[in-house]
């Protein structure tokens, strides 16, 4: 049919989104307490001289890279979960994955079991995410009906919420409690290359696991039985997606705290251009996620949280939730007929 024309338009979209991500990354390098011009920012980035060099390379570059990588990971994780569960409302945060990862990572930090830049923190986060996503896919099971999926997700999210509340409750000192509470809100402030280094290997593993199955998500549009008859190994793909989402989300939460809704919004936004094909959504959704989170991280630096104390920023997780939740409600409103149908 018109597959060549379509491949061309997909490539153009990917190129356009990539250009937007790069442009936002440059803006991100310019944004912050010290105002830098684009020229100063780029000079600081490339020659590393003087105060600009330190600000851009040591403070803003790791932060920007983390925003891009975490956004891409959430975008891809959302697209993959939606493909696996055949459900446009699937999103790691709705299933309690970041919340569960927070329990693991926050527990590690709160009780001083590991330093914030130790590999133990992402590993604990990944373990938490693995439990929640694995439990969800196991409960949602073969039919993966919308009602069961969302109810199970709600249960996991609430349970994980109770877990973080417990950690706050039992925090050794009020300072520790405040620190955990702030960390839970999600932020990329003051993240260093050490944070980047502990997360990146897990991100890459997550992208590989989730991206390799793109074709299978498309076959799943016919339902699990038909997909299996087409040669899709359902147990293997379920396992790969669960582990892929857990690796990505767990590592992201371990370095940046809880950031939600990018996984819901990013795939939805790119569908207007690539259509509903769950395979074609993956790469654009990752780039859209990168753009969204980078833009949100620029916004928290530009919006003064407290005019009297310019150093306090809005938390990134707060901003993505403030934008994401109304978006989610709008989607439920639009899909309500489908939701009512599947509830019966």
């Amino acid at each position, binding site marked *: 049919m018109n597959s060549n024309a379509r491949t061309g338009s997909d490539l153009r979209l990917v190129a356009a989104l990539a250009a937007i991500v790069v442009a936002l990354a440059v803006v991100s390098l310019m944004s912050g307490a010290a105002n830098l011009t684009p020229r100063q920012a780029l000079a600081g980035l490339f020659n590393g001289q003087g105060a600009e060099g330190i600000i851009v390379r040591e403070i803003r570059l790791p932060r920007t890279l983390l925003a891009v990588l975490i956004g891409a990971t959430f975008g891809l994780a959302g697209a993959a979960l939606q493909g696996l569960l055949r459900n446009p409302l699937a999103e790691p945060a709705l299933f309690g994955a970041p919340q569960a990862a927070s329990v693991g990572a926050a527990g590690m930090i709160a009780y001083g079991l590991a330093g914030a830049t130790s590999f133990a923190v992402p590993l604990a986060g990944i373990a938490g995410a693995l439990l929640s996503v694995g439990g969800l896919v196991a409960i949602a099971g073969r039919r993966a009906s919308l009602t069961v999926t969302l109810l199970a997700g709600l249960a996991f999210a609430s349970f994980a919420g109770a877990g973080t509340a417990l950690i706050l409750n039992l925090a050794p000192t009020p300072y520790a409690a405040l620190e955990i509470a702030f960390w839970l809100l999600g932020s990329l402030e003051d993240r260093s290359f050490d944070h980047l280094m502990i997360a990146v290997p897990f991100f890459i593993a997550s992208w590989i696991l989730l991206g390799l199955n793109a*074709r299978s998500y498309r*076959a799943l*549009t016919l*339902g699990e039985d*038909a997909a*299996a*008859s087409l*040669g899709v190994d359902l147990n293997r793909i379920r396992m790969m997606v669960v582990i892929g989402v857990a690796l990505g989300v767990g590592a992201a939460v371990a370095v940046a705290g809880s950031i939600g809704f990018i996984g819901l919004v990013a795939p939805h936004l790119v569908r207007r251009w690539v259509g509903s094909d769950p395979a074609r959504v993956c790469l654009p959704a990752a780039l859209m996620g990168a753009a969204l989170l980078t833009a949100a991280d620029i916004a928290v630096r530009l919006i003064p949280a407290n005019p009297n104390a310019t150093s306090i920023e809005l938390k990134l997780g707060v901003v993505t939730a403030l934008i994401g939740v109304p978006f989610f409600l709008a989607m439920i409103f639009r899909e309500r007929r489908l939701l009512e149908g599947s509830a019966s």
Partner: protein
Amino acid sequence: MSATAGNAILQATGVSVRLGGRPIVSDACLALRVNELTALVGPNGAGKTTLVRALAGLLPSEGRIVIGGRDLASLPPRERAQRIAYLPQGNVFHWPLPVADVVALGRHPHADPFSRVSGDDRAAVARALALTGTEGFADRPVTTLSGGERARVALARALATQAPVLLADEPTVSLDPRHQLVVMGLLRDAARAGGAVFAVVHDLTLAARFADRVVVMDQGRIVADATPAEALSTERIAAVFGVETMAVSIGGVSVPVAWREI
């Protein structure tokens, strides 16, 4: 049995399936032959869907299923999928994909993870679209189609695989009379083109009219495997379905019409 019937391409011997400890299919033996459309009939709960899923390799089963000389259980999923196309009940489409993309999913078993769409793939998709008369809405989202159109698209998807065996589970359910005839005709054409087609059919009239052979199932067992006239005798239908039938002869074909419960 039709004169053009060839050798058995799929041979099932002593196939039994237990689900949750309960026997659903017991000791089923049957052969699917090239150029034959075989209808599987039986009351609700007889185990028809379970038998078809077992033959498709989607359920663990006891006994032996051999396809093209190879043991089904030993085939990797992809090779199995190249040999057996399976059309499940209900024609589910979860995403509003264009019809051409849905049909192209039938080529999934032939694709390597990194391969591009080949000329063979394009030809097979175009052929499946043409055979089922769906090329007119190839670019429309599949979710916007009527039930009859969806049934044809689902069948086109299964045909695009160009597998030697096609298993269809109630392909005519919830279709209007014209589309029932269209779909049964397409299945028979697929058999005539060199395939072995096995279809669960609820309508005994359609089974008698289109099938070369009819397999009757009751309570998990195959109780008849013969020509339509023999398998669907008045006595057998009475015993298996508990209904009295009238045999009506139309154009030389005797078809049973369910008349009243016994």
